[in-house]
C-alpha cells in the first residue's frame, strides 16, 4: 500500500488535531456534563454538618438537588469544606426512610401515617395515664431546626407537664454551657468569627479544628498567612493536622491540661503580664466551693502549679509552659478555641473555666481578636437547643426551670395558667437513658439523632432499648442508622433542604434554610410530625397555636424579647434576605452583635454606661475567675489497662456516619474505623501498620486495624467513632461531669494487643 504525500499529511494533521485536543477535550466533556447539571435555581441554606454553620447555596434542577456551592454572603465567604461540598448524594441515598413503619413480631413493617401515629399516641397516653408525666420523654438533637426543638420542648414542658426533654447536645457542649454560665452568668460565646481575622495569638486546646471545623481552621490559617507574626499554640496529646500550622504544639499526658492551664496563670502573674486594671474592675475571684476571695488567695492557690511541678505531672517541659503563657498574654489579641477535648470530660466545666480564667487575668476579652471561643459540634446545638432551652433544666432564652420567676414569666408569655410548668428539672441524658433501660421511662420520642451509636458505654443502653415494656418512636431519615434496630415506630422525616427553618451556629449567628425541594415519598417535616402528634394527644391548643414553621419562629422571637438574648430584630423577612444575623438583635434595623458585654456593641448595655464592659449575667456585673484544681480522670490507666483510649472525628465523616457514608468518596476514603497507635508503643507491642489489634476496656473489647504513626503520644490510642460496624462507644465510659452531666468520652483506660 502506498499513500501519497498529500494523504499522509492529511492523516498526520488529523492526528495532531486530536492530540492537541488531548488536554482540552476532557474539560469540554466535563463542561458539557456540568452544563447538563446546571441548576435551574440556587436556594439559600446552611450546611448540614458541623457547628461552623457555613452558608450553602443549593443548586436545584427539575425539582432535584444537583449541586451545592458556598454562600458568598455568609461568614464562610463562599467556601465549603470537603464534606459540605459533597452533600447532594445524601438526599437521594437508597437508605432514605420514605414511609412510616411499625415493628411487628420483631420486624419493621410499612404502615400508614394514621396507623403509626395512632400507635405512638396510644403508647404515650397509656404511659401518662398509668405512670404520670415523668414516664414520657423527648430526646432531640443539635441537628434539629430551632423551631423543631422549641416546639418539642414547649409541648413536653407546657403541654404534657414533663421536663424530660433532652438531646445529644448534652453529649457535646454541655460543659461549654456550664463554663460560660459559671464564668459570666449567661451561656454562649462573647466573641465571633471576625475575631479570627484580628487575633495575633491563637490558643487551640482540646480541638482538632482542622478536621472538625475545617472552614474555621482555614480562616485561622489564612490569618497566619497574612501575618507571619501571628502565633498559633496547639495543646493536644495528638499531633493532628491542626498542629501543622502551629508555632508551639504542646503534647501532654491526657487529663493534665487542668494543671497546665493553672501553670500558665502562675507564669502570667510571675512575669507580671497580668492586667490588674481589668480584673480589679470586672472580675470576682472564686474558690471551688463558691466563696469570694481576693487576688492574693488566687496567687496562693496557684503555688501548687509552678511550671516545674506541672512538668512532672503533664510531661510538658516547664520552659514550654512559660513560653505559651507569655505568648498568650503578650499578644495584642488572643483567641482561645476549644471543643470536645475539654467538654467531654468529668471536669469539663472546670476546664472551660480555666481557659476563661486566662482571659480574665490578662484582659484578653471583648476587644477584636481577644476572646474565649468555644466551638460547637453540631449545626444547631447553640441555636436550637441551648438558646431555646431544649434540655431538662432549661426554659427558653437562658431561663431555668428551677427558678419560679422564670417559670412564671414563661407561663405568662405563653398565655398558660400559673403552675403549668413542673418545678422539678427532668432527667439529664445519661439519667434518662438509664431510666429508659430500667423501664422507668415508658415512652420516648427520639428525633434526628442516633443514640444507639452515640451514647457512651452504649451496650448498657441498647440492652435497655430492647426491653418489651418500653416504647421508642424514632424520626430518622436513614434506614441503616443503628437506632432503627431498636425503635418500635419509625417515622420518615423531611431531610435538610426538604424543609424550612433556622440553624444557629457557634458565633450566635442564625441563618435560614429555605426549602429547596419537596420531601421524598411520604416524608413530612418534623414540625408537622410534632404538631400532628400534639393534636392527636389532645394537647391544649393554646400550647401549639401554630399553623406553620414561621409562626413558631415568631413566637420564639417574642419569648426571647424580655431577655438579653433578644431576637426581635431577626424577622423571617430579614433571614430570607440576609445570610445570617447574630443575636442579640433587638430591632429590625439592628445589625446584630459581634461582641457581647461590650459597651457600644452589645445592645443590652446602655450607650452611656460608665464602664467599657458589663457582665450583666451576674448580679454585680462582674465575671468570675474560678480556682479549679487539677483532678484526675474518672478512669486513669493502671497495670491491667495501661493505656488511654480517646475518640473523635476524621474530616471525612461526621457523627455516626449516617450521612457521610452515603457519599461514595467519603465512604471509600475511610471505609472503616481504625486504631491509631504511637510508633514507640507499636514497636514495644510488636504491632505493625495494618495489623489487627484488640482493644479491651472494662466495658467491652473490639478488634481494629492499626495505623502506626506519631500522631498519638506514647501511651495514648485514638479511634474515630463514626463506624456503625466498629462502634467504639461500646468501649467508652459513661462517667459524667457533676455540673454539666456531660460524659467523659475523651479518656478511659484500655489494654491493647496484636491478634
Amino acid at each position, binding site marked *: 500500500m502506498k499513500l501519497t504525500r498529500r494523504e499522509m499529511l492529511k492523516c498526520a494533521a488529523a492526528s495532531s488535531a486530536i492530540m492537541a485536543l488531548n488536554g482540552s477535550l476532557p474539560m469540554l466533556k466535563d463542561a458539557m456534563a456540568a452544563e447538563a447539571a446546571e441548576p435551574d435555581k440556587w436556594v439559600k441554606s446552611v450546611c448540614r454538618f458541623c457547628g461552623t454553620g457555613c452558608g450553602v447555596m443549593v443548586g436545584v434542577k427539575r425539582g432535584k438537588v444537583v449541586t451545592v456551592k458556598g454562600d458568598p454572603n455568609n461568614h464562610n465567604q463562599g467556601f465549603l469544606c470537603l464534606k459540605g461540598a459533597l452533600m447532594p448524594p445524601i438526599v437521594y441515598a437508597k437508605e432514605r426512610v420514605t414511609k412510616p413503619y411499625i415493628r411487628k413480631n420483631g420486624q419493621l413493617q410499612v404502615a400508614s401515617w394514621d396507623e403509626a401515629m395512632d400507635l405512638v399516641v396510644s403508647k404515650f397516653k397509656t404511659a401518662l395515664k398509668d405512670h404520670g408525666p415523668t414516664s414520657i420523654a423527648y430526646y432531640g438533637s443539635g441537628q434539629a431546626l430551632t423551631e423543631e426543638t422549641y416546639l418539642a420542648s414547649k409541648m413536653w414542658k407546657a403541654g404534657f407537664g414533663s421536663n424530660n426533654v433532652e438531646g445529644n447536645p448534652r453529649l457535646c457542649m454541655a460543659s461549654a454551657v456550664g463554663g460560660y454560665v459559671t464564668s459570666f452568668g449567661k451561656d454562649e460565646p462573647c466573641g465571633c468569627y471576625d475575631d479570627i481575622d484580628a487575633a495575633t495569638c491563637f490558643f487551640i486546646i482540646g480541638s482538632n479544628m482542622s478536621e472538625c471545623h475545617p472552614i474555621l481552621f482555614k480562616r485561622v490559617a489564612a490569618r497566619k498567612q497574612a501575618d507571619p507574626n501571628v502565633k498559633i499554640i496547639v495543646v493536644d496529646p495528638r499531633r493532628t493536622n491542626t498542629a*501543622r500550622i502551629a508555632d508551639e504544639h504542646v503534647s501532654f499526658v491526657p487529663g493534665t491540661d487542668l494543671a497546665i492551664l493553672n501553670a500558665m496563670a502562675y507564669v502570667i502573674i510571675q512575669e507580671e503580664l497580668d492586667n490588674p486594671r481589668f480584673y480589679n474592675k470586672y472580675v470576682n475571684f472564686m474558690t471551688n466551693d463558691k466563696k469570694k476571695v481576693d487576688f492574693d488567695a488566687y496567687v496562693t492557690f496557684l503555688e501548687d502549679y509552678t511550671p516545674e511541678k506541672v512538668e512532672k505531672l503533664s510531661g510538658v517541659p516547664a520552659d514550654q509552659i512559660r513560653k505559651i503563657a507569655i505568648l498568650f498574654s503578650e499578644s495584642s489579641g488572643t483567641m482561645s478555641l476549644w471543643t470536645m477535648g475539654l467538654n467531654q470530660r468529668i471536669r469539663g466545666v472546670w476546664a472551660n473555666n480555666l481557659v476563661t480564667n486566662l482571659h480574665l487575668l490578662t484582659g484578653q476579652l471583648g476587644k477584636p481578636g481577644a476572646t474565649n471561643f468555644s466551638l460547637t459540634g453540631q449545626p444547631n446545638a447553640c441555636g436550637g437547643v441551648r438558646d431555646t432551652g431544649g434540655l431538662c433544666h432549661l426554659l427558653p432564652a437562658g431561663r431555668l426551670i428551677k427558678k419560679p420567676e422564670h417559670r412564671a414569666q414563661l407561663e405568662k408569655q405563653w398565655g398558660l395558667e400559673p403552675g403549668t410548668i413542673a418545678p422539678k428539672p427532668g432527667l439529664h441524658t445519661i439519667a434518662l437513658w438509664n431510666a429508659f433501660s430500667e423501664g422507668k421511662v415508658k415512652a420516648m420520642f427520639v428525633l434526628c439523632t442516633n443514640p444507639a451509636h452515640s451514647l457512651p458505654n452504649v451496650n448498657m443502653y441498647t440492652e435497655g432499648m430492647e426491653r418489651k415494656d418500653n416504647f421508642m418512636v424514632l424520626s430518622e431519615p436513614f434506614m441503616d442508622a443503628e437506632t432503627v434496630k431498636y425503635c418500635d415506630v419509625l417515622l420518615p422525616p423531611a431531610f435538610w433542604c426538604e424543609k424550612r427553618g433556622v440553624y444557629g451556629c457557634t458565633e450566635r449567628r442564625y441563618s435560614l434554610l429555605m426549602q429547596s425541594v419537596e420531601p421524598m415519598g411520604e416524608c413530612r417535616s418534623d414540625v408537622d410530625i410534632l404538631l400532628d402528634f400534639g393534636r392527636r394527644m389532645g394537647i391544649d391548643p393554646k400550647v401549639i397555636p401554630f399553623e406553620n414553621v414561621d409562626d413558631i419562629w415568631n413566637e420564639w422571637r417574642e419569648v426571647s424579647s424580655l431577655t438579653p438574648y433578644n431576637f426581635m430584630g431577626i424577622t423571617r423577612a430579614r433571614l430570607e434576605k440576609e445570610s445570617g444575623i447574630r443575636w442579640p438583635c433587638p430591632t429590625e434595623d439592628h445589625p446584630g452583635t459581634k461582641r457581647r458585654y461590650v459597651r457600644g456593641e452589645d445592645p443590652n448595655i446602655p450607650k452611656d454606661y460608665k464602664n467599657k464592659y458589663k457582665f450583666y449575667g451576674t448580679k454585680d456585673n462582674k465575671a468570675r475567675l474560678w480556682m479549679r484544681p487539677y483532678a484526675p480522670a474518672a478512669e486513669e490507666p493502671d497495670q491491667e489497662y495501661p493505656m488511654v483510649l480517646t475518640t473523635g472525628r476524621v474530616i471525612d465523616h461526621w457523627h455516626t456516619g449516617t450521612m457521610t457514608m452515603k457519599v461514595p468518596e467519603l465512604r*471509600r476514603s475511610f471505609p472503616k474505623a481504625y486504631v491509631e497507635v504511637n510508633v514507640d508503643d507499636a514497636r514495644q507491642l510488636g504491632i505493625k501498620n495494618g495489623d489487627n489489634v484488640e482493644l479491651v476496656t472494662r466495658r467491652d473489647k473490639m478488634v481494629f486495624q492499626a495505623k502506626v504513626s506519631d500522631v498519638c503520644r506514647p501511651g495514648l490510642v485514638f479511634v474515630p467513632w463514626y463506624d456503625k460496624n466498629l462502634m467504639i462507644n461500646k468501649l467508652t465510659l459513661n462517667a459524667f461531669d457533676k455540673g454539666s452531666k456531660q460524659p467523659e468520652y475523651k479518656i478511659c483506660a484500655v489494654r491493647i494487643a496484636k491478634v
Partner: protein
Amino acid sequence: MKPQSPADHTILTKIVSLSTLLVTVMLWSTVSTATPLKHLVAPDSAADCYECHKKATPKIAEDWYQSKHGVQLMKCFVCHGQPDGKGSVPWAVVPSPKAVCQKCHDPAMQRMQQKYGLELDCYTCHPFHQNSLHHDAYKKSASKVK
C-alpha cells in the same frame, strides 16, 4: 495478486486514515480518561488517593500536601472524583471549573470574569496544587508570582 485499482487504493487510504484516527482517539482516551487497572485493586479504599500517590506520583502528591488544599485537607476526590467513575464527582484529571471549582470559588470566578472576561478557565493562572500555605506560607503563591 490482483493489481490494486485506484478505487481500492482510495478505500484503503481511507481505512488507514480512519484507523490512525481511531488509534489516536483510543490512545488519547487511555491517557486522559481511562481507569488505570491498579485503581481497581482496592475499591474499598479507592478514595485514599494520597497514600498510594505518595509512591506512584510523589511530586504531585507532595505538591498537593504542601498546598492550601493539602493543609486544609481538601482531598483529591473532592475535585477529581473517583478513578473508577463510581463517585459523585465526575472523574477527571482536569476537573471542570464549572462542576468543581465553583463550589468554593464562585465569588473569585465571577470576579475574574468581570475583570478579565475569563470564563471556565482557572488553570492558566492557578497551576494545580501550587497555592502554597505550609512551608512557603509567607511567600507569594505560585499564581501570584506568575
